[in-house]
């Protein structure tokens, strides 16, 4: 007797494809990039897979070049602000703040502060930590 290999394969494939379609996208922490403007600056903020613990944030500034960039996290729901972390240069108009501690999950707000000859500016980016 010939086994219905083709039939079994088709059914298994359809079930597997259906399961993958259902589960796909549900549990992947996507990198987030947000953009805001303040005064002469346009600021892009990226966080790769925000998580509890140390995080690395990338800040890209278009417009006049700032002298100093800091990022300061606030746990909005707890009302707890943390000291600002300086972001070092990482190419022209790019800055990177490494090991910014976010000790709990939930809604964070990251204040990016710019200082420079074109004046100070602050922009706030929301960040959801899972």
């Amino acid at each position: 007797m010939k086994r219905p290999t083709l039939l079994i394969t088709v059914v298994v494939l359809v079930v597997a494809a259906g399961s993958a379609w259902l589960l796909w996208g549900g549990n992947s922490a996507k990198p987030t990039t947000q953009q805001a403007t303040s005064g002469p600056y346009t600021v892009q903020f990226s966080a790769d897979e925000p998580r509890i613990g140390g995080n690395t944030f990338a800040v890209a500034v278009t417009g006049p070049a700032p002298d100093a960039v800091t990022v300061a996290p606030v746990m909005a729901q707890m009302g707890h602000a943390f000291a600002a972390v300086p972001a070092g240069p990482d190419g022209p108009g790019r800055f990177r703040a490494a090991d910014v501690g976010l000790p709990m999950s939930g809604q964070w707000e990251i204040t990016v502060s710019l200082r420079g000859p074109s004046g100070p500016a602050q922009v706030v980016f929301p960040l959801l930590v899972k």
Partner: protein
Amino acid sequence: MLLLLALLGITLGTGTAHADGAPVGADIQVAQTLGARELTVIIRRVDTTPSPLRVDVVTHQGTAPGTLHLTAAADGVVTSRGDVVLGAEPGMYPGTLRVDKPGPWQLSLSDGTGPAATIPFLVPARVVPPWEKATYGGFVAAGVFLLLALVVGVRARRTAFALIPAGGLVAALAVAVTGALLSASTPPPPAPGSQLDPTFDNVTDPYANAQLSTVDYSRPPVNLAVHTQPGGLRLALTDGATGLPVDDLLIHDNALVHLVVVSPSGRMSHLHPVRVGPGDYRVSVADPEAGTYAVAAELVRRGGGVQLARSTVDLNGTAAPTSEPPGAGKRTINGTPVDLTISPGTPTTVTAHFPAGDLQPWLGMLGHLIVAGPITGPDVGAAAAKAPTWAHVHAMIPPVAGQLDRPDETVAAYGPDVSFTYTFAAPGRYRIWLQAERDYRVLTIPAVVDVPTTGAAR
């Protein structure tokens, strides 16, 4: 049997996903005191993107004609501009902008004089919850397997081979029915906008990072600093826990901030400061008196809960003081005869009888009543600022079952009686100000209420 179960599940599980505090696609009404104009800005619902964004601006009696410049911005970049030409007659004036993606947007209005007023708002996305995907996908797969089983049963050499796709059919049906049955008990993800800070990512897919919070969504109380500036007031709102500017106000009762100011002689103004920057709100005060004003701001931060922040401000001005208003009885306000009756007791009911049932909703309500007291002495502003009772009482418009959008101000069909019930906490002389809108004019009816010692006992 499985089909019956599935139908039952679908019938029970018809909950709607709310991507914002308001139902998806509802109109947003925002009162704005822009310069000398008191406007109501109505951002009409957007169902799909990209699409035009209709913005209606309602003017009131005495609003100067002119042109408002509107912009819509996303990511800090202006993507659409339009003008609204306000006529001399009070009424609704339309404008059209364009939005091209769901997420947090910012509408700005400028009258060409001061800084532009900015209103953050959400363009909702159509969100398909995971259980819906499972249910629909499961039923589609079940149908495919059923066809396959039929074909195999008829064409194959052994009829028993049809059991293989039939197994797939049972698995698919199980997925579909489970999804449908779980739909009723699946909690919606935290709502971007009213609970979480909205971003383009989480508005489009609120399930992606969905995690119910371990702590309350509410935020700390605000600190209110009131500064004078030429022509009005500048309000600085800072977070009570971090000192940072507060930029997460939600639209509550059709405004970002309800500012009630009481003049030194007892005139009340109910104003709606415009947002010009994070935590920076401006409002103009027309023709002020000299002396101490009582200031109270009602607002809601993201996460919920109405907050009341009270303060005082000293203004310079030349307006003549007003005298103490009467209690109950007939009077004429801006040409409208009004009869006020006050039924003392615990609680006390204050009713204003207007001449006709042609009142319009203002701020989503039929009427507003501001209560301050007990007040002694002639300096009402300073006394109201220190008064233990400061209340804002509402008279609802009668709700219409099944109507998602609330009527806007063009519906002049309410009244003629506006009734408020309030329980006074202590005996004494209170100042009350009753507000209702008629013929595009917000009528403010001041009165005094003497609460006797016996009437105040609970």
